[in-house]
């Protein structure tokens, strides 16, 4: 919300300069987000006097003027018709930035020199009289700065108003805060009303059918209203705070709203059927056209202001086109009401219509300020529009909104805010913002909350007022003495951190992808509709189609990240993400959130270097990572098996389940080329996924160290020619089973297919390590076992020796 310093000065005399004022307001809880000078663009605009006018030799509509700007006289080409010799005008000099975006330069117009511009109010942004240029009265002196001579000096402060402070959504409210900060006095505008018209109650009546929605409605009637543009000062006030002047009647309602915080509405009395007001809820789907010429469809709990026959305004939000003030309006019915905040909020939200009025009503206006505001507006209409004010107000107030008293303990105040102002200090602080205080006993005080402070309901609210008026920075910082609660760190947090740390050790970069994905992600992964991942948790109000549903898999986000990197020519990637997926849960209100990790490797396994050639990564590179990760987690019984039904986004035949003791903890494989295509990825990607929920129970809770072997080991190599279909694990299992005790390790150091190995066969070389925990093994014994193993393997797999 914008406030103008010069406007505020009407209610409080401001001692500080603008910077200090802005700072003090910020520290009192009204954050000043920016300060601007609405007339900054006028610093090169001077009062000029037209000395002579001559016709332009080459243009009929233009004239060449000599303009006295104090220290010199300049030539200006002008097209306005209302200029005359001797006129005092506003002359903008080169360098001026006009509000319409024009930057003035010394120029020549059809060969005639023009060293400035004679401006209209509109061009200067100081009014809306655009017919002809601004003619100043004789009190001004040529050469003086226009903004100084017209007193166009102001500072407009933008307040980031928190929702609890509707009382400060007006000048008087902010002025009250300034008065408290500077120990000044708040001056309310004096109202003297000349009510020379007939009794208001003979002119109109107000019926409230739904007092829950509208606890109070006051109306006044004004006769002989002359609708016209507002005087300059009023337009200036409104423009400064960002409101567009319309006509004097509407401007007055806006002015009073900005002054007091009470939104007002002016109806053309003669457009109201039966000249009366009925406040009632709308009928479902009732249509209504608001002032902005849009047709609205109402719902049954929205509140209408109606005349004797038809709706004329959406209560607290916007008036109707059918009863708008127009140039010919002569009689005005002025509304000043208190609408229920939640009622206005619901209506404004559902209609998608936020107005200055709804902003204030939904936060809560001062129910006791209704009359002050309507009188103030009547006074101004009388003064500005020449209106005859009818006698009295029709004020219907079926449900009095009770005033608030709060009993506050001084001791508890000290205990909460950490400083110890005494009762007297508290009283004087609260009085400065119009709270009244009555001591009850040594500790308790009774605080009467002014009706405009709708946010203050509890003792703690009073304590906050005390703290902020003293200043938060006056409160000493101390260390809380309470004992730390030492809880065992959760295993989950520990493991996750450990897994991430290990992946980084293996050379992988952590990524964080958005939790939402595009709704077609499941299709791009080729998932079938029976897969729960095809039925994501959908957002009702997504920002875009790409972020429409909560992810049911970490894979799409990772593939997107790969694509983005490839677009940047980052082609060698080792990435992981540890995060949550969200699966619909039919019986629970919230989806199931499952955490896991996805890791990918794409590009090279080995970067080209003077000592090594480049090699592309493959399945076994990533498998090695998974094995190492499991090793870091002390999981010994990891096996990989062909999936019964692999996720369809993996390439068939290049995918494996990770099993620990019959439990599937994850999956590893090469991404299917169709899926890569769907993400515009043109190089193979290897990916693994592990679900933490399945993994954690497999991690041994206790670590126990094993003694180191005391006797040396011996190795023997064996090369076999096998059927291509025989899998390594089958052979290793058979080899181990030959002598579980003494075969301590088997490595496969070569796998070869092709010449001279015959078609359908492969050669595999094994290095078997033998070790005993009881003795140093003798050669003869090892040879015997080795031969046994060879015989068994040859027999089992119909293998040959090379």
């Amino acid at each position: 919300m914008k406030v103008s310093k010069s406007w505020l000065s009407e209610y409080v005399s401001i001692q500080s300069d603008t910077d200090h004022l802005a700072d003090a307001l910020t520290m009192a809880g009204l954050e000043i987000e920016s300060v601007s000078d609405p007339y900054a663009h006028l610093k090169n605009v001077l009062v000029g006097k037209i000395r002579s006018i001559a016709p332009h030799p080459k243009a009929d509509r233009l004239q060449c003027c000599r303009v006295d700007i104090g220290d010199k006289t300049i030539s200006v080409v002008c097209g306005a018709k209302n200029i005359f010799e001797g006129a005092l005008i506003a002359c903008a000099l080169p360098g001026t930035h006009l509000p319409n975006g024009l930057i003035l330069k010394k120029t020549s117009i059809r060969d005639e020199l023009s060293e400035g511009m004679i401006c209209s109010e509109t061009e200067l942004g100081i009014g809306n009289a655009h017919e002809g240029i601004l003619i100043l009265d004789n009190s001004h002196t040529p050469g003086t700065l226009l903004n100084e001579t017209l007193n166009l000096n102001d500072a407009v402060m933008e307040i980031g108003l928190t929702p609890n402070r509707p009382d400060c959504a007006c000048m008087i409210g902010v002025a009250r805060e300034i008065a408290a900060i500077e120990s000044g006095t708040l001056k309310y505008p004096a109202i003297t009303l000349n009510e020379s018209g007939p009794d208001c109650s003979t002119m109109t009546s107000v019926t409230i059918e739904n007092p829950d929605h509208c606890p109070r409605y006051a109306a006044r009637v004004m006769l002989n209203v002359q609708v016209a543009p507002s005087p300059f000062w009023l337009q200036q006030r409104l423009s400064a705070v960002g409101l567009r002047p319309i006509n004097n009647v509407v401007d007055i309602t806006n002015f009073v709203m900005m002054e007091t915080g009470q939104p007002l509405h002016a109806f053309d009395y003669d457009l109201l059927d039966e000249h009366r007001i009925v406040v009632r809820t709308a009928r479902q789907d009732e249509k209504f056209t608001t002032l902005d010429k849009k047709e609205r469809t109402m719902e049954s709990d929205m509140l209408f202001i109606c005349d004797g026959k038809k709706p004329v305004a959406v209560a607290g939000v916007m008036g109707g086109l059918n009863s708008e003030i127009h140039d010919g309006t002569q009689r005005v019915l002025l509304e000043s009401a208190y609408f229920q905040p939640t009622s206005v909020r619901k209506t404004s939200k559902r209609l998608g219509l936020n107005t200055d009025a709804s902003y204030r009503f939904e936060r809560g206006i001062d129910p006791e300020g209704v009359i002050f505001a309507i009188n103030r507006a009547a006074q101004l209409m009388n003064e500005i529009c020449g209106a005859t004010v009818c006698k009295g107000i029709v004020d219907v107030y079926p449900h009095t909104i009770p005033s608030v008293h709060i009993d506050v303990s001084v001791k508890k105040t000290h205990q909460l805010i950490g400083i110890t102002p005494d009762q007297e200090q508290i009283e004087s602080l609260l009085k400065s913002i119009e709270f009244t205080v009555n001591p009850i006993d040594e500790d308790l005080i009774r605080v009467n909350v002014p009706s405009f402070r709708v946010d203050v309901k509890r003792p703690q609210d009073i304590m906050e007022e005390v703290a902020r008026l003293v200043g938060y920075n006056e409160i000493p910082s101390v260390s809380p003495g309470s004992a730390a609660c030492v809880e065992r760190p959760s295993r989950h947090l520990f493991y996750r951190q450990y897994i991430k740390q290990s992946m980084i050790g293996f050379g992988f970069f952590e990524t964080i992808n958005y939790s939402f994905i595009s709704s077609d992600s499941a299709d791009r992964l080729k998932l079938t509709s029976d897969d729960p991942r095809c039925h994501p948790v959908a957002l009702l109000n997504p920002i875009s189609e790409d972020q429409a549903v909560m992810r049911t898999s970490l894979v799409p986000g990772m593939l997107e990240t790969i694509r983005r990197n490839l677009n940047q020519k980052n082609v060698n990637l080792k990435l992981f993400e540890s995060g949550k997926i969200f699966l619909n849960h039919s019986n629970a209100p919230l989806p199931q959130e499952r955490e896991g990790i996805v890791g990918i490797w794409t590009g090279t396994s080995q970067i080209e270097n003077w000592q090594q050639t480049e090699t592309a990564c493959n399945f076994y590179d990533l498998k090695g990572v998974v094995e190492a990760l499991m090793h870091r987690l002390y999981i010994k019984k990891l096996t990989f098996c062909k999936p019964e039904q692999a996720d369809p986004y993996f390439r068939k035949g290049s995918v494996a389940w990770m099993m620990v003791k019959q439990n599937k903890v994850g999956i590893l494989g090469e991404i299917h080329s169709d899926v890569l295509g769907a993400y515009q990825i043109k190089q193979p990607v290897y990916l693994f996924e592990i679900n933490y929920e399945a993994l954690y129970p497999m991690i041994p809770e206790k670590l126990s160290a094993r003694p180191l072997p005391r006797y040396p080991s011996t190795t023997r190599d064996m090369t076999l020619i096998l059927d291509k279909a025989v899998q390594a694990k089958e052979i290793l299992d058979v080899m181990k089973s030959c002598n579980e005790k003494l075969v301590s390790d088997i490595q496969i150091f070569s796998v070869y297919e092709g010449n001279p190995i015959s078609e359908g066969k492969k050669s595999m070389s094994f290095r078997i390590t033998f070790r005993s925990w009881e003795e140093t093994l003798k050669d003869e014994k090892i040879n015997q076992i080795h031969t046994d193993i060879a015989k068994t393997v040859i027999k089992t797999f119909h293998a040959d020796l090379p």
Partner: protein
Amino acid sequence: MNAPSNMLEQIQSDALESLAAASDESVIQEIQTHFLGRKGVLTHFLRNISDLPKEVRPEAGKSANVLKKKLETAFHNALSDIQTAKQDQEPGIDITLPGRPVSCGAFHPLTLMNQEICDVFKQLGFEIVEGPEVELDYYNFEALNIPKDHPARDMQDTFYISDNVVLRTHTSPLQIRTMEKRKPPVRIIAPGKVYRCDSDITHTPMFQQIEGLLVDKNIHFGHLKGILTTFVHHIFDEQTLLRFRPSFFPFTEPSAEVDIQCVMCRGDGCRVCSQTGWLEILGAGMVHPAVFENVHYDTDQYTGFAFGMGIERIAMLKYGIDDLRKFYDNDIRFLNQF
């Protein structure tokens, strides 16, 4: 004929003298051959030992063998000294050739920042808790004193799943979830992802937050200031000024926003702090009694404070990152800098 001992002494002194004079590898080898070679002087002596009188033979043989050992060592050392000296003079390998590449990964900068912040609070005795990201309206709003149809809901643009289910807009629901389960004292921090329906240069629809809560007897606003001051001094430095200014959060009363002196310009005013000299990094306040009532804590006995901060903002300040969206692009050239 000279006594054998004299002869050996003579051989020793001849050998050592010529060795001392030699500076060349081949000369040393020649000298070595001269004395120890197949036809060498000492070899000759040893071979002819049987010609010596019986009584001196054992002694002479022993001495000759000792001398042989001694000379062998001397020649060996002399040769290796020369070889070492030669090696030392060689230009050596090109140590400027790059090493064999080792790929090293890295934590995401937000994880790094998160860890750093959590570490400070862990030292201050806070425990880390986590909770669901898809949350009931009750925990995200109502229990935090943000009723439906309250303008305070405008402070956070919310993603809705249904009328009663939202993506959490802050990690504050963990306050409620924790207090529902535990009796005071409570001392927790809740890091995690949060979501708001907002996407532009300064907003991503998902971001990360850390919420803190401390509840105990006799906790006041000064304690809140104390903890947050310690925190800021740890994360930035001891000279960083803080200011607390009144603000509004529905679940705290009094509420404050916490600004730190701009870490870029030290308060002089710059682009980062919009010329104000201050940066807003935290929201905080004393726990609102309505919140305590919702979890059945005795408001006469207990008070507490809560605070929350955005991790991205602090990471941007700490690491000098100018565009929030970089965090979620996951460009490897960005990630590789942390």
